[in-house]
């Protein structure tokens, strides 16, 4: 209960900060529109049979890029005022920090997908089943984004506590989130092809999410709070980052 209360408090703080400027939500939604325009220009004229393969790819590639942008920006705010370090020394469970950060990133990503999914239905007529089965699509999007955010939050937080170099997030994030994105692709394609076993894919995505959230939560504290020795050594060592 204590953990839930801490998550709620941190999430409310995050939301309050976001509502003041809507910076992350607006930039992510706008970037989603840019991605849609790019996909419409490059793939809009392909035949319907190819659209069944293209639309899931367009959706989850956009989520991957928007997710990278969102996670970078969510933790950039902490880095600019060095508040993540303050949060880590506060009497708050580290798991609460992880879940609150993941929740705000998930929320922004879901808002971005609320722009992406209808946009893709317009650009690719073969993606119409996404509009015809809104509950399935919603579950698909939520499960897909949860896995992505579970991995992304851990590494974005890890990079935010370092000195700059958050450009490395893409290097880490994209290879590691590939399994989630692949499951999402398979499930989305099954939805578009009206595959009878489409529902079973949601179960598999949920299982992958459980593994990734569990790993992310387990590794959050060791990644963010390391031994003082290594930091001291790194600070004293000339010309080397590690």
């Amino acid at each position: 209960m204590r953990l839930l209360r801490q998550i709620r408090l941190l999430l409310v703080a995050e939301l309050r900060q976001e509502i003041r400027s809507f910076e992350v939500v607006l930039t992510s939604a706008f970037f989603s529109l840019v991605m849609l325009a790019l996909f419409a220009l490059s793939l809009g004229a392909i035949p319907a049979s190819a659209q069944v393969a293209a639309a899931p790819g367009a959706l989850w590639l956009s989520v991957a890029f928007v997710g990278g942008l969102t996670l970078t920006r969510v933790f950039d705010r902490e880095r600019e005022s060095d508040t993540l370090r303050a949060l880590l020394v506060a009497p708050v469970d580290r798991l609460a920090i992880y879940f609150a950060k993941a929740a705000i990133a998930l929320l922004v990503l879901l808002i971005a997908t609320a722009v992406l999914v209808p946009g893709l239905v317009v650009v690719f007529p073969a993606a119409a089943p996404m509009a015809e089965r809104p509950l399935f699509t919603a579950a698909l999007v939520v499960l897909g984004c949860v896995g992505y955010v579970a991995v992304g939050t851990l590494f974005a937080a890890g990079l935010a506590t370092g000195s700059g170099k958050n450009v490395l997030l893409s290097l880490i994030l994209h290879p590691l989130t590939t399994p989630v994105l692949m499951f999402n692709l398979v499930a989305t394609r099954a939805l578009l092809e009206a595959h009878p076993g489409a529902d079973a894919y949601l179960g598999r995505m949920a299982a992958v999410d459980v593994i990734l959230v569990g790993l992310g939560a387990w590794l959050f504290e060791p990644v963010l709070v390391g031994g003082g020795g290594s930091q001291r050594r790194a600070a004293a060592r000339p010309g080397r980052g590690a």
Partner: protein
Amino acid sequence: MRRFLPDVMLLAAAAIFPYSVARIFLDTPIERTMGTAFKIFFFHVPMGWLCMLMALVCGIAAGIELRRRSTTASAVALAAAEIGFVCGLGVLLTGPIWGNATWGKPWTGDARQMSTALLWLILAAYLLIRHYGPENSRRLAAALAIFGAVDVPIIYYAVKLWKTTHPTTEVVGSLPPALWASLWPGLGALVLCTLGLMGIRIRQLLIAEELDDAWVRLADRRG
């Protein structure tokens, strides 16, 4: 004796390897369906196994490194990642040559091809983070290695949901004894070479660590 073990392993590998190559090309019969291109199997498969093994070793060592903050585990993880990276590169180069001769095209997007390519990308990302990451890069890289080790079977399963054209493990398991007999010396040489190189690299990394510590102590003493 322990100090020279890696050198002994490398010497043994150097002695076995020419015998293995001669056996593969001169004594092993040509496979009926795949022809001469099947000879790649004797290099491709052991490198694939070693790449997977090194990713696993890297993940386990990274877990120990995070848990116990062990310098030795950190060195083992880095050495395993470097060797896994090289083995993965070997697999990704020899695989398409074999695939082109067998399937008619070098890349089919098959489950094992994709999972090996992604594993190689994760190992590459691990090495980039270790070398160019911020001050907490070791912990980040360790988490990456653990995620990588967990990701590989998931990637494999995800791609398998689509399609697979790769020979199954049963095909490899049902090889005639003559082909197995030619596989073992090459595999042995590669394993010895890998362990020898790993031993040398771990020693080198630990010495570098000790030098860094000595440098910090000196800087502290100078105030």
